[in-house]
């Protein structure tokens, strides 16, 4: 049997060579390109030299791979990602798909789902941003209390592109609607839609599970076979890291050790060391030691940091 592959910006690699991975970060993005009309754009990272310095700290802490979850429409540049990967020797996985409605490119707000599927398939099979650099993950974003309108159309496009290409799916729920969705995360709605479209939840990463977490909902995601991604680790205005630890331990106790992912969703200068923040290495430098101190053994940590990301990011057969 052929070994599973992961699509990075420098080509496909065997999944077994991914290494310690952060499956949801931003390393080159520009929220100013979005039009949500409600406040200043702060998610801006455009200095690749600075990012190289920050990712070097990530590498020094043991990091070997990173997903840039920025899609077309708010500042993704796969050429820059490839350059950063080359300079840091870190595997970088680029993302296709669609973010929230306010950040969708104009064609995503009007084209039928078939056109959107074509666009996504081209990004993962041919190349992005006018290059031959391919994306290795498909993203679907929800910013409303219901999966509706253009976000629903785009979610279906993502599902169908996954069915055609095997590229795995990652999801986003906007924090602004976290108090309007039972459980706090649109993952349940996403999984329902994806299953309607014939997607196996084993190829779906439910993102932002640790913004407004409810262990009952996280249990549901895991029981349905999806990956439960704690990807805002360190952002303690959403949830204390201590609470995240408790939730991770609860999921481990329930036997879901093969479905947990960890990342920190860095997306602005203030979150990086240069801006006084905790950097891309916060999970490795600060959160993992906390897990260890709470009795999580090295074998389990390897699952969370290496084996699970490799499985989650693998192209489905």
């Amino acid at each position: 049997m052929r070994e599973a592959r992961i699509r990075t910006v420098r080509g496909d690699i065997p999944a077994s060579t991914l290494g310690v991975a952060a499956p949801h970060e931003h390393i080159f993005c520009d929220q100013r390109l979005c039009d949500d009309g409600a406040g200043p754009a702060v998610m801006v990272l455009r200095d690749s030299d600075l990012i190289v310095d920050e990712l070097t700290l990530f590498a020094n802490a043991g990091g070997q791979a990173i997903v840039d979850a920025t899609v077309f429409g708010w500042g993704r540049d796969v050429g820059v990602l490839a350059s950063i990967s080359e300079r840091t020797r870190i595997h970088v996985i680029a993302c296709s798909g669609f973010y929230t409605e306010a950040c969708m490119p104009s064609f995503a707000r009007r084209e039928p789902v078939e056109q959107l599927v074509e666009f996504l398939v081209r990004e993962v099979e041919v190349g992005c941003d006018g290059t031959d650099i391919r994306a290795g993950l498909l993203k679907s974003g929800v910013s409303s209390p219901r999966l509706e309108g253009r976000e629903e159309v785009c979610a279906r496009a993502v599902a169908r592109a996954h069915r055609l290409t095997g590229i795995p799916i990652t999801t986003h729920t906007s924090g602004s609607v976290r108090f309007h969705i039972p459980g706090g995360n649109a993952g349940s709605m996403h999984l329902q839609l994806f299953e309607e479209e014939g997607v196996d939840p084993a190829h779906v990463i439910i993102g932002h599970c640790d913004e407004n977490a409810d262990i009952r909902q996280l249990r549901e995601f895991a029981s349905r076979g999806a990956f439960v991604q704690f990807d805002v680790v360190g952002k303690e205005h959403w949830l204390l890291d201590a609470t995240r630890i408790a939730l991770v331990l609860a999921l481990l106790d329930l036997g879901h050790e093969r479905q947990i992912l960890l990342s920190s969703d860095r997306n602005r200068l203030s979150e990086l060391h240069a801006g006084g923040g905790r950097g891309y290495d916060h999970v490795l430098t600060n959160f993992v030691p906390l897990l260890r101190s709470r009795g999580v053994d090295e074998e389990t940590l390897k699952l969370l940091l290496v084996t699970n990301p490799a499985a989650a990011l693998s192209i489905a057969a």
Partner: protein
Amino acid sequence: MNLRTPYRMVDPIPDVPPRPEPGKAALIVLDAQAAFWSDDTGLFAAARDRGVTREFDEYREQLERAARNLRQLLPVAREAQIPVVWASRSSLGLAVDPGEPSIADDAVCEALADVVDEQDCFVVRPGISLFTDPGAREALASTTADTLILAGALANFTVAVATLEALSLGYHVVIPIDCCASESVDWQDVFRLQVHGGRSRIVTTRELVEILRGSRT
């Protein structure tokens, strides 16, 4: 502004998010009068007297944005058979002081004067609270609304208080966040966090216009 919100994490969520419907909603514009919006009177005059006009720059920018969006929203609301209520205040300060002279001009500010309609309702209340004033309560009751769309300034006081009062009285609340102006950008963030959750819903003007026009499924 990053603030933890543990209470909101366990606040019960309604089955259906608040959505204004014709005959069941009213749009309340709070304190859209010259004293809070215009350069030559009220707040800005007081700031000028004190030499601190510059402190109001972020508030002024938000007012300009709110005015632009209200000019778009109000006609759409009326078309959707949602009545508009202009709720002004007779006092400039936070506290109602019986000895303090009332604001001389409680008419709608110049920036919004041409989107006022003769069918709109006008109430003047003594302080920040919308619901403790009998006149305002009567005006709201006459709209038969169970959902209130709240907008205006100074949002981190008036819209925030109105939202929490409305929720406690059983209303659903929808807040077009970019039709609201707080005293600073940081306070607008705090206001947004304070009013967010449960039976209140924050939207943008664009989203609300689509909802009212029925083009947002």
